[in-house]
């Protein structure tokens, strides 16, 4: 992969509110064409960081560089390249969606009326664009918010909890739009969420934040691989204790949660085959083997020290 200038650079960003450090020396880069998932439990500092990048909050320290422009010294040039939704999309509710977009477009360079029609079609609101936004449902408001965020073809697109209020079809569509925007138009997309499952489906990389600190950044592939390496399997057997004794001879295996007729083992895919063979060989009966869950969440909980909403 050729070395490209990062679309967004956050260097050592820090923000404290009173005694609480909401964002603590966070640094990372966002590259063109990637979808970056910003994951963390409620109150981890996701929204504060996003508000800092979007110009709502002044960082106490640190530098934010958007599309090569330092936000501090070249505010307007930097902000020209950014689009997004913070928390809920809020429009002028007594104005039509189209007028809202036209007003927003006026503040950017080179946004034509054709472009407005284009984004309205993209989010599927072309037929109701002339209605006042106050008549819109929450999902429609999310869509018009997305349309506004995409309007000026930003180099960096930041969406804070974008799936709130969307129906499953809408979520699916949003994923498609985001992937398309990132992969085809080369936009760097950052999506924040506390829902891991959502992140898995749309992100290329994930950054995990907790208590204001950025704990880890990894690609979704690595995370999946890591998860695949050790999954939890529930083995149903008439004598779990005997089985435990047999399996404990094997290296790289963790046994947890012993009940009267099951035991859970944490091991990779090839390992479980051997476990089954060992139990069969020793004469233990196997009533069933079940893969319990991807341990991505487990991994996540471990990294963040718990407190995530798992759905």
């Amino acid at each position, binding site marked *: 992969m050729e070395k490209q200038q990062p679309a967004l650079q956050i260097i050592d960003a820090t923000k404290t509110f009173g005694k609480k450090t909401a964002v603590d020396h966070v640094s990372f880069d966002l590259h063109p064409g990637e979808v970056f998932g910003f994951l963390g439990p409620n109150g981890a500092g996701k929204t504060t960081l996003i508000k800092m990048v979007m*110009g709502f909050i*002044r960082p106490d320290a640190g530098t934010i560089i958007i599309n090569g422009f330092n936000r501090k010294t070249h*505010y*307007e040039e930097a902000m020209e390249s950014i689009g997004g939704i*913070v928390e809920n999309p809020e*429009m002028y*509710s007594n*104005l039509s969606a189209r007028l809202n977009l036209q007003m927003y477009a006026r*503040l950017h360079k080179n946004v034509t009326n054709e472009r407005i029609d284009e984004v309205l079609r993209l989010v599927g609101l072309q037929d109701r664009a002339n209605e006042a936004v106050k008549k819109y449902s929450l999902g429609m408001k999310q869509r018009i918010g997305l349309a506004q965020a995409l309007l000026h073809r930003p180099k960096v697109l930041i969406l804070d909890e974008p799936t709130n209020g969307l129906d499953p079809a809408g979520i699916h569509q949003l994923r498609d739009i985001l992937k398309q925007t990132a992969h085809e138009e080369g936009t760097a997309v950052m999506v924040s969420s506390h829902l891991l499952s959502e992140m898995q489906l749309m992100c290329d990389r994930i950054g995990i934040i907790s208590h204001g600190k950025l704990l880890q950044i990894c690609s979704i592939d690595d995370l999946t691989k890591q998860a695949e390496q050790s999954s939890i399997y529930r083995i149903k057997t008439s004598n779990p204790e005997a089985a435990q004794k047999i399996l404990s001879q094997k290296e790289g295996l963790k046994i947890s949660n012993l009940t009267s007729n099951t035991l859970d083992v944490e091991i990779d895919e090839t390992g479980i085959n051997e476990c089954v063979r060992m139990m069969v060989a020793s004469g233990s009966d196997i009533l069933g083997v079940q893969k319990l869950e991807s341990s991505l969440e487990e991994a996540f909980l471990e990294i963040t020290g718990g407190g995530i909403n798992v759905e």
Partner: protein
Amino acid sequence: MSKIFKLYTNEMIKLSHKISVWILVGLMLIATFLTPLYIWKQFKNQNLYEQEYPTKTSITKERDSIAEQLGDTDKYTKRASLQFMQGDHVVDLFATYYDLPDSLYDQYALLYCYNAMLANYDFDKYPIGDTYLAFRAYSNFSMQCHTMVELNAIPFEERDTSWYNEYINQNELLELSRTALFNHDYNAFYEYLKANNKGYYSYDNIIENVFKKFLEIDPNGELSIDETNNYISAFYAIFDFKETLELGVEYDGNTYQFLTDARKKEIEDKVTILEYQLQNNKLASIMSTDVTQANLYTQAFPRFFLMLLLILVAGSSVSQEMATGSIKSLIIAPVKRWKIFVAKLMSVFTWVIVGSFLITLISTTMYSCLYGSDILQPYYYVSGGEVKTIPFFLFSLLYFLVNNISLFIYILLAFMISCMTKNAGLSVGITSVLLVGNTFVNSLILIFGNRTWIDMLPSSNMNLVPLIFQNIILYSTGTDEVLTLLSGNPTNSLQFSIIYLVVLAGTILLIAYDAFVKKDIQ
């Protein structure tokens, strides 16, 4: 800069979609439209500008009613003869005297006067009230008639040399005023006025001077009542001002004050303007002056709605966006925050200008339609010794803005509170309370009079009209005393007030700027 205008365009679009804005604009326009109509309807049937002058009909009517009360007038008349020494001569008199009860003196004198009038005066040729000259001759004639009756009422036996001297003197005066009135020869009458007014700085002296001036303009008393009144008012004002300048002292209603240089200049300018108007035949009629002032002052009613509108617009400008969250789409946009601040401020002030313009335009048009387009006078001022004018419409607009300087402060205040709170209702509410509070303070000032600390209050520095437009009132007509009472006299100098207001506005703006531009938006 272009970003600010784009933001400004957006602000105006947002405001133009608010129903409350249009309701208040509607009310404001209706009020502007109806006030002149109301004034016109109220006063159209009252002949405020026509004085009651004697006519043949009125005099005949008066004469008949007096004659009826008196009954047979001959019964009051007695005749006798008398001899007395006047110098070296023996005067032999056959005299008439009236044996009148006290209550009937006046009646009889009037009857005497009316009879003479009806017998000698040509009402068809010269109505008495047409000019100042004729009317003054008339009132003097009736005064002399009265004096003659009084002299004749003195019992025959009590008359002596001094009575005789007085009789001769009064007879001469009666002849003078008779000539002036019946023959319209006012010169002799003027000479008499001049000879009989010895006091230099006196009211009579002014009358005499006015008479002389008027004699030059209208030697035969042919001008209409309106024109006469206008000239008289101007003459009186000029002589009054000149007398004040000469004395260097002015009575302000309570005490005598020495004229300051500024006040001296102000009076001199007024004299210059009045003399210019006289020379160029541009004297404003009293009616025109009153309508012009009515136009300026009745704008206060629509102003109320403009004030509500502006406080609503300014008060919700930032806070409402904060409350609904729509501010986000402004913050995300590639515009610096101070530009948003400036654009919002500009949009608010646009409504001040547009509102003032509309109120002035509609009001001026209405008054012009109702009273004729010539009625509204331009504003006269003196610059470099020359008299210059500002067309009425422009003057009216400027006047409105200066008169409503407090509006600017209240808007800034509402805007400031709007920047500091997320609650539009709160900011509109607080400003409204301050508005009412100011009215309360103003009434306190009326009660407690002027104290030093009162001079430092904002409301004491917002009455700039009398300081800037000194020549609105050139001379006194009936209405302006009320108007002066309403607006009050500024106690601080223009420079002080302007600096005060600039500092006040600057402070408010600075707080607002700090609250909006520097603050994090959560």
